[in-house]
């Protein structure tokens, strides 16, 4: 579904990704974990064409999308619920969802809306509320719901659990599993919450300062002592796995 090969990227003269290789197969949930500043957000954004990759290749379902402008990448069926949620603050919940459906066939709108509101009933009660006044958890639901409105093949989720209460975190992860299982959406999930992410994911990659340090199935990484020490057992984000 998604294949990233030798990807380099950064901001101006600062290089943040030093040759990333990952692949995400159809129907999978792949988790990407790593400490703050490892480059996880940069990787997701580079896949979406902003910033542009300085070297390497990104292919989506076999088609090269490296260097395409962001909006055309979105139109290939890649949806992004970005870091910080980026809800349009002065638009209503319904309008935010409509923006998510910008590239979808308008005839599907009603169905897609029902589907998303079925996943997130809270949003249904607040369709006319302005996005900027939603609670953090509601904004996260809206960000995911908005991404789903375009019927994506691949969903990129950047720290959907950030700043949420444990109960809401669990809800969000359950919904991600549902989306994947019942609606067949492939998911690439960036998380600080390594335990939840690894339990959910079929496979996972660990990122350290712009490189992939470790890859494996979710269960393997959950039981890997190094991972346990650094990202689980209360040591979340405290250190880094060595690259060697």
């Amino acid at each position, binding site marked *: 579904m998604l294949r990233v090969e030798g990807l380099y990227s950064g901001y101006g003269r600062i290089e943040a990704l030093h040759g990333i290789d990952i692949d995400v197969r159809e129907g999978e949930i792949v988790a990407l974990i790593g400490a703050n500043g490892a480059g996880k957000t940069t990787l997701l954004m580079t896949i*979406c064409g*902003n910033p542009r990759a300085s070297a390497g290749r990104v292919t989506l379902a076999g088609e090269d999308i490296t260097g395409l*402008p*962001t*909006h055309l990448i*979105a*139109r290939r069926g890649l*949806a*992004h619920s*970005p870091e910080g*949620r*980026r*809800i*349009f*603050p*002065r*638009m209503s919940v319904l*309008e935010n969802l*409509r*923006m*998510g459906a*910008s*590239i979808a066939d308008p005839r599907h709108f009603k169905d897609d809306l029902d589907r998303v509101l079925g996943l997130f009933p809270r949003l249904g009660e607040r369709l006319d509320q*302005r*996005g*900027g*006044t939603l609670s953090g958890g509601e*904004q996260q639901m809206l960000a995911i719901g*908005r991404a789903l409105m*375009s019927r994506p093949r691949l969903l990129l989720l950047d720290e959907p659990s950030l700043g949420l209460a444990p109960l809401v975190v669990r809800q969000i992860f359950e919904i991600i599993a549902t989306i994947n299982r019942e609606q067949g959406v492939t998911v690439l999930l960036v998380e600080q919450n390594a335990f939840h992410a690894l339990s959910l994911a079929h496979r996972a990659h660990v990122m350290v300062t712009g490189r992939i340090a470790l890859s494996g199935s979710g269960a393997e990484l959950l039981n890997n002592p190094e991972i346990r020490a650094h990202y689980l057992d209360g040591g979340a984000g405290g250190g880094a796995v060595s690259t060697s």
Partner: protein
Amino acid sequence: MEYFFQQVINGLTLGAIYGLIALGYTMVYGIIGMINFAHGEIYMLGAFISLVAFLVFSSISGGSVALALLAALLVTMVFTALWGWVVERMAYRPLRGAPRLAPLISAIGVSILLQNFVQIAQGARVKPLPPVIQGGVTLDLGAAFSLSISWLQIVIFVLTLTLMAGFTWMIARTSLGRAQRATEQDMKMAALLGVNVDRVVSATFVIGAALAGVAGMMVTLYYGVIDFYIGFLAGIKAFTAAVLGGIGSLPGAMLGGLLIGLTESLWSAYFSIQYKDVATFAILVGVLLFRPSGLLGRPDVEKV
């Protein structure tokens, strides 16, 4: 009293025109966070295009003034819209992401270019247009109190209000309007959702320019004289209107336009006509000093 109301009517007519220009400023500012300094010249260009188009069409339309006016209006909107597109492509798009001063300077460059182009093509002298729409209605409101409103004023008012209403509807209800608001609020996110941000920005310049073109035509009809230099003053006044209403706010631009028109007309009536422009600039300075967010500008209270 009669005199006062008469001036109010004149002021509102003028203000409607300023409001139409102000919409373009405020819309472009909202979406790319920059003042389009070439906007006043687009309005001036609209005035000239409408003059030429009207003269051409009235000579071939066989005497139907209404038809000639309508055709001139359409031609004016099309050509100013085209210029709006050119300005964005030439002065703004290549410099997106450059330091903020750069596009301002290139926009000023474009406005000088347009001014000189019209000066050379049309000559520096004032161009007259004999009154096209004459007559009016007189409202008798009791003893010794009557107001006269010219047909032209009514045409200007109806046309500008219709355009403003249509425009407001477009922003609120259509998918282009929604994409414009989304782009204004978070350009990067809009792109992530598949919105072609470049196209949205272009459309914003184009629509703003077409509205300014209509304003140019209205002024040509209203005053009957134009020259290549009118864009500067009208531009600053409409800019003041946009700032007064709250830059970025569409209702604010319309309200600001009406208030500036009223100020100008009442000031000329009761104080001194020579200093009418000073009154506008005093408002600009005052708003910038004491209420930079303007009357309807948003106070920024969102969480995000």
